[in-house]
């Protein structure tokens, strides 16, 4: 039959005028017409689209969202791990510095548990990596060391080098003054001209590279750790610098001979008394305004 899909055409209203006229004359047309008419009234059972929509959208977008979160979390974690790793590597390989600011002392442990106490205004640089193979650090200022027994332990300063094995000692490297005091064991002290070995209770002092007389060691610990500042024929400028560091003040000398020597002990925890001692020894007066102090010859 040629009218293969003719009924489909008719149902869609796409029959030509003549085709339709012919179709309407057929016996079946009436029934098809009814089918078309009544099927137009058909409908499906009600269906709650809104409810379904809510179900779909309010459904936690489980998989992708969780994955995203995990990914983000993992990403952050990865960044942290890498960051910490880099920090660790940086810490190990880079130079470590410890600084005691003016007015403060700082105690810390080296990688081998040797203990260092930094006096005010002093700084130490060392490298953590390979510390146990080569115990060597750089000191600028004054520090007290309690060295754990092991390989040699070097303290390098601008004014000389101190080498020990396991001991307790104090190194002072300020301006031209280089002084090493041994409280336990033995210490080798080297500067460009001398190489001295000192034992427990001994001290060696250099001023501008020359050996000068040392004050005998009377205590078990450096005096600065017992709130005392000991001077041994130190120039006034050195005393002033030490006071500035320990008390974190600024001292202005006026008409004062900065090269005059001072020997003695002054407290490091009582600024009034310290200033009194110094000013009476040098016969000058001092004025204090908070952190600023003026020394003037009488």
């Amino acid at each position, binding site marked *: 039959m040629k009218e*293969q899909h003719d009924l489909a055409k008719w149902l*869609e209203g796409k029959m030509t005028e003549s085709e339709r006229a012919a179709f309407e004359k057929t016996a079946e047309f009436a029934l098809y017409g*009814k*089918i078309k008419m009544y099927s137009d*009234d058909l409908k*499906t059972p009600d269906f709650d*689209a809104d409810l379904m929509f809510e179900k779909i959208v309010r459904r936690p977008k489980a998989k992708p969202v969780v994955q995203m979160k995990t990914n983000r979390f993992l990403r952050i974690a990865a960044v942290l791990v890498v960051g910490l790793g880099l920090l660790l590597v940086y810490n190990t390989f880079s130079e470590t510095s410890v600084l005691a600011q003016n007015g403060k002392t700082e105690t810390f442990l080296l990688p081998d548990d040797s203990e260092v106490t930094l006096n005010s205004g002093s700084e130490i640089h060392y490298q953590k990596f390979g510390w146990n193979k080569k115990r060597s650090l750089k000191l600028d200022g004054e520090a007290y060391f309690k060295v754990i027994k092991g390989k040699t332990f070097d303290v390098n300063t601008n004014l000389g080098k101190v080498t020990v094995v396991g001991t307790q000692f104090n190194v002072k490297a300020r301006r031209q003054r280089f002084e090493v005091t041994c409280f336990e064991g033995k210490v080798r002290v080297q500067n460009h001209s001398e190489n001295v070995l000192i034992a427990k209770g001994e001290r060696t002092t250099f001023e501008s590279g020359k050996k000068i007389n040392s004050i005998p060691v009377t205590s078990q610990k450096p005096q600065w750790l017992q709130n005392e500042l000991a001077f041994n024929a130190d120039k006034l400028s050195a005393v002033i610098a030490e006071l500035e560091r320990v008390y974190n003040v600024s001292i202005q000398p006026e008409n004062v001979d900065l090269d005059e020597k001072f020997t003695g002990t002054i407290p490091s925890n009582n600024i009034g008394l310290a200033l009194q001692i110094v000013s009476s020894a040098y016969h000058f007066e001092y004025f204090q305004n908070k952190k600023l102090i003026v020394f003037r010859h009488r």
Partner: protein
Amino acid sequence: MEKTAVESVCEELVFARFFKAHAKVLHNFLYYKFGNEAQAADAAQEAFIKLWENCENVPLEKARSYIYTVANHSSLNVIAHQKVVLEYAKVANPMRHTSENPEFILEEQQFKIKLERAIQNLTESQRTAFLLHRIDGKKYTEIAEMLEISVKAVEKRIHGALVSLRLEIENIK
């Protein structure tokens, strides 16, 4: 043009608009296929969920064919087919009710029942095509897209459906 290109199915408003436009028809389509209301609703919901979850990978213009592809595939898992139960719209065309002749109304009722039974006895492919046209008012080209077949095949199914319906109704007579 530009606007549609930018619009993402992931945006809830876009998705909502798309859902409103297509949910009912997809649901009906699945209902004609399965003859089961709950299954149709489940499958329709499933298709939209898949679209929602994959919204990043489905551009809006592909979304319609996407849900029908999902729906067509899900129908493969359905074995038993149940009878498609339809209703007649309560408010029928008033033009036809000018005559309040009770005999006519009775005849009309009987015809409706016959028609419904005949529709139930159609093959699944004929029924789906026929009802998408009659109930959902879809054009043959749209039906072809939904069923993923050619327009000619749709026409063949519609024609076949009409012939079957007529024969079925005549036989019952």
